């Protein structure tokens, strides 16, 4: 089997990412993705599923999510109520077992992409509780005594924002990829993919401004790829031309429509201060 992921028309995958995805795909191991917020961790899974024509099943993890919920949940309350109402369904426990995302992925007729999104949001024990299930791709349902086993092992993609450390035993079973912040060339490709036919000059000026903003020392939150894309969308909407972006010498250090790029009050202040200093220097 030589499935290979080569990026899609909507997603620019760097060489190292392609290798990591292919490895996870072939060896049927989970792929752990980390990276700065806004570098496209979640989008990756969607694009992989599109590129390889595999259905995508997403499991968003929250701080209250338990590992068991991914397998199945036994709805005892409904059963209790049904028993008091004399419902016929109550006799079969299977009626009260709700399938979780893992069950769904394992029992799917095609090979699927299973995205476990933001695994670090949950309790620290969460990844450990899923070790066996992800390793063997099977689990046991106590209530009915059956074993659910995946015929076609899904490609598991796990994203993490690094809020908690993941247990070693869990890490050992995964392939790992760190999405680093794209350099100017990759960024240009990404922009072209999202805004086909955009004027080259506008992109150039916008990227210059963008990397300048990122390079300003002391920024509390650096703008990321998704923010750049939003900003470009705004620029296109407002029909701002490249010349306006370049108007640095008029003391306009704050880029137009900066609200899309800078999301922190203190950062805006910082920029205003810098603009003020630049103006004073000129006078």
């Amino acid at each position, binding site marked *: 089997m*030589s499935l290979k992921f080569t990026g899609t028309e909507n997603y620019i995958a760097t*060489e*190292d990412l392609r*290798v*990591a995805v*292919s*490895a*996870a795909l*072939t*060896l049927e*191991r989970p*792929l*752990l993705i*980390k990276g700065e917020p806004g570098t496209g961790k979640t989008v990756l899974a969607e694009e992989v599923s599109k590129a390889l024509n595999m259905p995508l099943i997403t499991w968003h993890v929250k701080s209250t999510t338990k590992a068991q919920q991914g397998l199945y949940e036994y709805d*005892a*309350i409904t*059963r*209790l109520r049904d028993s008091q109402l004399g419902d016929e369904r109550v006799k079969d426990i299977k009626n009260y077992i709700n399938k979780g995302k893992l069950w769904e992925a394992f029992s799917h007729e095609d090979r699927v992409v299973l995205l476990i999104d933001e695994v670090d949001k949950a309790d*620290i024990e969460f990844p450990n509780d899923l070790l066996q299930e992800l390793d063997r791709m099977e689990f046991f349902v106590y209530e009915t005594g059956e074993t659910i086993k995946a015929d076609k092992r899904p490609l598991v993609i796990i994203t993490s924002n*690094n*809020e*908690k450390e*993941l247990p*070693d035993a869990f*890490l*050992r*079973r*995964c*392939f*790992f*990829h*760190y999405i*680093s912040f794209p*350099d*100017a060339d990759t960024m240009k490709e990404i922009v072209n993919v999202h805004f086909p036919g955009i004027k080259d000059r506008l992109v150039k000026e916008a990227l210059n401004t963008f990397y300048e903003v990122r*390079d300003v020392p*002391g920024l*509390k939150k650096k703008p990321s790829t998704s923010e750049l894309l939003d900003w470009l969308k705004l620029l296109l909407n407002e029909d701002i031309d490249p010349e306006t972006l370049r108007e640095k010498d008029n003391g306009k250090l704050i880029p137009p429509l900066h609200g899309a790029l800078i999301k922190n009050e203190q950062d805006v202040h910082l920029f205003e201060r810098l603009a003020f200093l630049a103006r004073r220097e000129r006078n």
Partner: protein
Amino acid sequence: MFVSFFHELKQANIPVSLREYLSLLEALDNDIIDRKVNDFYYLSRAALVKDEKNLDKFDRVFGHVFKGLENLEEGEIAQIPEEWLRSLTEKYMTEEEKKQIEALGGWEKIMEELKKRLEEQKERHEGGSKWIGTGGTSPFGADGYNPEGVRIGQKESRHKKAVKVWDKREFKNLDDSVELGTRNIKVALRRLRKFARDGNPEILDLDDTIKSTANSGYLDIKLIAERRNNVKVLVFFDIGGSMDPHIRLCEELFSAARTEFKNLEYFYFHNCLYEGVWRDNSRRFSEKIDTWDILHKYASDYKVIFVGDAAMSPYEITYAGGSVEHWNEEAGGIWLQRVTDIYENAIWLNPTGERYWEHTPSLQIIKQIFSDRMFPLTIDGLDRAMRELGR
């Protein structure tokens, strides 16, 4: 096949296990990659490294183990385009400085020397007078004092086509022994949050009660430990003087701590803790707060963090009247001792590197007062510090 590579990774303190090594071999066996060095680098990285803080170490080991291998491929080596450097100088150097360069043998000679040193040097470097790095007096590197210096800085990374991927070492700043960013600090501080769900089960867990009642058919009450997300923290910052170079680091720590802990109280002091501290540095003399008031006000379950370089004259700690800016009735050491007596969880974070510590006597005294609970202000140090505080 790659056993020595594996062992070197182990020696570099990258947590690799046999399992990961085997899965790398399995991947190679499955022909996932073409037989190219770059692809092998990517594959082994994905299989063996599981934490971005180890990526830089991995790059170093890889470069070391497979040195010479890249020649088999295209033979590209690290190069900085000369024209580019030249244009840079023309932009930034004054006539006078250019003349000084001429005195040193001219541009050509400097460039030649730079190439030579680039060859010899692979490690990151700070200070000193020969190697390329930051803050030194060598003609090459950043933020230096040499007028004919060649700045090798961030911009370089945008011209990185010719450099080998692992030698680029783009993951440098994720190594946990180097520098801190607010995000990284937050992650480290979150260690404290983990311990917040301790205690006796004493509040009703409604969901679990309903579930187990339904399961067993009788009222089955379940209790759960209270969620204590409110770790209480008291921070004392050393301000001014020798702390000035570390201001940025302290700011980052402070802003990260502010968002992480709901109950955070902070105070400033200078060099050593005495009978008064202050909240606002611009009104430090008019609005002094009595240290006794603080020790009385905040209960002993507060976790205390001191941030300072602990570099001063030993008299400032051991003698009454030793303070550099006022007459103190009691020695600073006594005040520090009082703090550590009251607060069980007290630590000292030091922004200076751990390897310089033994040369500062005052630091040793303070470290002793804190029974060795002094940690460097790096990710790793912060991590250890939070572990200590969480005990």
